[in-house]
């Protein structure tokens, strides 16, 4: 009887896979999230028999925090079972995806296509995408590395994020908030010009300023919950009054926000740094929604030299 039970268990285990149970996780903390792929925590065993990645085709090498649906295609050797990808040492494991058919144009190779999202917590600056071929025994070959530059959207540094010799914007005032509400940044310049979603570039005097976006406009959630006012050139000196305008609460009872200002610093060695100067926080209740017709909440005054 016990022998029969043992055989039954073996058959059941065999039908479910020989490697034992694998861990399931949404892996939302990972810097990369690959669509339709499986996340395997930790490193994979390395074996030259795992095959190799022979080609990678990417649109560009600049990743933006929170970017969705980036595409990476390529080819692996024909003995590969799956392709694995991770972001340098930032990832805590590998995403694996079965490879596709053999490519008739490249005999002995198989295609793969990866669609991935970029996490918001991914570190800024240079990094490395690693792709590896996985063989029949579950071991991976040596990784194929692709250098990438990670940038952010709220405080757009441009290529300065990866090359400090490229100057970042001269000044940035950014606002971020915690709920899906239509909150707007409003800045009154020393020339009494108001920059907001109604006039995103300000007047002629402050013409170099630009508002990056109207986040969650009309309660259409965009996933950013933040917007920023960017001066590519130094703003006119003086005091800038900063307001938070809750246009619509979108069903939320309250919202907490933070306003930060950054300025460019010349390091006098050919490199630049974007430094954070001040940070102010506050909150608004849904009853304080203005609909754009009332006085917004004054938060702070920022002085630019």
């Amino acid at each position: 009887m016990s022998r029969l039970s043992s055989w039954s268990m073996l058959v059941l285990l065999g039908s479910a896979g020989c490697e034992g149970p694998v861990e399931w996780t949404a892996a939302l903390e990972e810097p990369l999230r690959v669509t339709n792929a499986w996340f395997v925590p930790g490193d994979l065993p390395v074996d030259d028999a795992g095959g190799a990645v022979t080609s990678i085709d990417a649109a560009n090498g600049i990743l933006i925090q929170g970017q969705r649906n980036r595409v990476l295609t390529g080819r692996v050797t024909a003995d590969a079972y799956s392709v694995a990808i991770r972001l340098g040492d930032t990832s805590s494991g590998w995403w694996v995806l079965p490879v596709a058919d053999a490519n008739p144009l490249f005999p002995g190779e198989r295609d793969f296509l990866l669609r991935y999202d970029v996490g918001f917590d991914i570190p800024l600056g240079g990094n490395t995408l690693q792709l590896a071929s996985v063989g029949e025994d579950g071991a991976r070959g040596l990784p194929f590395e692709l250098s990438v530059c990670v940038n952010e959207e709220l405080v757009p540094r441009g290529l300065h994020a990866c090359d400090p010799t490229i100057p970042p914007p001269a000044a940035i005032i950014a606002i971020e908030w915690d709920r899906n509400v239509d909150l707007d940044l409003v800045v009154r310049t020393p020339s009494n010009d108001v920059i907001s979603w109604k006039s995103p570039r300000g007047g002629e005097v402050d013409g170099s300023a630009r508002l990056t976006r109207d986040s969650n406009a009309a309660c259409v959630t965009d996933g950013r919950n933040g917007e920023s006012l960017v001066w590519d050139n130094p703003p006119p000196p003086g005091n800038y009054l900063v307001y938070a305008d809750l246009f619509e609460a979108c069903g939320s009872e309250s919202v907490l926000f933070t306003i930060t200002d950054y300025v460019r610093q010349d390091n006098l060695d050919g490199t630049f740094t974007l430094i954070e100067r001040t940070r102010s926080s506050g909150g608004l209740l849904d009853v304080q929604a203005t609909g754009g017709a009332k006085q917004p909440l004054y938060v702070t005054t920022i002085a630019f030299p």
Partner: protein
Amino acid sequence: MVLHWIYVLTVSASSSMTQGATVEITIEDDDPSTQAEDDEELVIDAAGTAPPAGEATPVAAEGSDPPAPSAATPSEPPVGEDPGTVTDTHPQTSPELAEELRQLRERLEYLERKEDERAAKAAAKQAIADEQKRTRSKVEGRPSAVGVGFKPLSAGSDWGVRFGGYLQVQYLWSALSEDQLMQGGTPLNRNRFMVRRGRLTVEGEWKYIAAAFQLDASTTRGAFLGIRQAHVSALWRNPDASKPPYIMATVGLTEAPFGYEVRLGQREMIFMERSTGSLAFFPGPVDIGLRLRGGVGPFRYDVAVMNGAPLDDRAGSGANGLDPTTMPDFIGRFGVEVPASKYFVAAGASFLAGQGFHAGLDATKNQVQWQDINENGAIDTGELVSIPGTAATPSETFSRWAVNADVELGIRSRIGWSQLWAEVTLGSNLDRGLYVSDPVEVGSDLRQLQVYAALIQELTKWAIVGFRYDFYDPNTDLLDRRRGVFVPAQAGMHTFSPLAGAVLPENLAPGFRGRLVFQYDAILDALGRDSRGVPADVKNDQFTVRLQGEF
């Protein structure tokens, strides 16, 4: 001279209720000397100790002296008068008294008749109560597998309206839990306390009619209050109340007569939930329709015409329970049941035939979409594309069916009942709760297979242990694409569920029963992928502790 004789007749019923009747008869008497002695009471009790109607002449109370005959009331009838007729010895009031006596006799006869009828009714009621008591003693202690589909009728309950219910509070731990949200905001965490079911039932049962209404309050998917039973039945009962009725026609929201688990009440179910396949076929055990069931001897039948849109047992929202197809489902089970005091055997075969629904798409408007082809986060030439609106697509229906066989066995030993039951179901396009079948989308029929076997062992009346093996394959024809080649793949899920629990017997706290049950579900499936991309078992075991209180 006027003589007042007052007769007070009191009739006491044998039941707790007391009814009385008072007859006052006033008889004129010319002799004032007898007036004080003539106020008499005649008491007739329910035991029939009243004097016969013919003797209902005014007499003094027991122990007192009879009224002294006056000169006008001789003890012998006068010569020449008929001694056979009741005559008053009072020459002047004789006709009136005779009339009064006649009326009195009639009233007494009437009251005695009524009393006899009441006594007969009380005896009949007592006989029913005795029979129900005998029935109760027959079914008490029987395992839940006996009489499934006919409860509470076979429980020998008293006729009339009664209230009841039960509460299931549990803590669930799942290996899948994670402190994250799914797309849409649903928490991935499953480790939590919850009120799985809170049922309140009002049932009415009479000789030819029965009805039930049950509400469910739970927090399974957030706070929820909904209906779980609402039906009225007309029935022709078996004289032996421990057996199911010959015919019972039910309309309303009631269990779908398919297999064993679906018909088994959630209250009686020892395992936490129905088996995986049963939950996939019937997201909830109840549906709305017409159901006809009954039993003759060991044979049982249970057939129904239902909407085919079972109410989800795990609370509901949206179109839960709304049937999108015009054609109903035809469901039924035919079986045998042989209950005895120390064993029982039951088995049955079930069928289901119905129609599924493939929802069409709404019409859409024109849209402009940005495709960030070069992935630079900015709109460049050629990245704005127009998406023309589309016309609505029609919905389609498809046929679905299933056949099922079930068997239930039980034997009573010195340590308690041992119960074993098993089911096997073959289905086509019937998955409505897990991998919802849509052959229109897939292009071919989806076949399902469900098998399970469960064992429950009572350990005295205080504890139970059990084990269930459950297998469900939502698509027996599944293919997996591996390195560009389609290969047969396993979609089956094996669940091994050991169980142990403590039971609070019925007699300990009158009117209340309870149990505390621990169950671990070890699940073997192919829902994950290993590093090769090959389907693999995923860590999704779970553990549940449930406290159930019944009243």
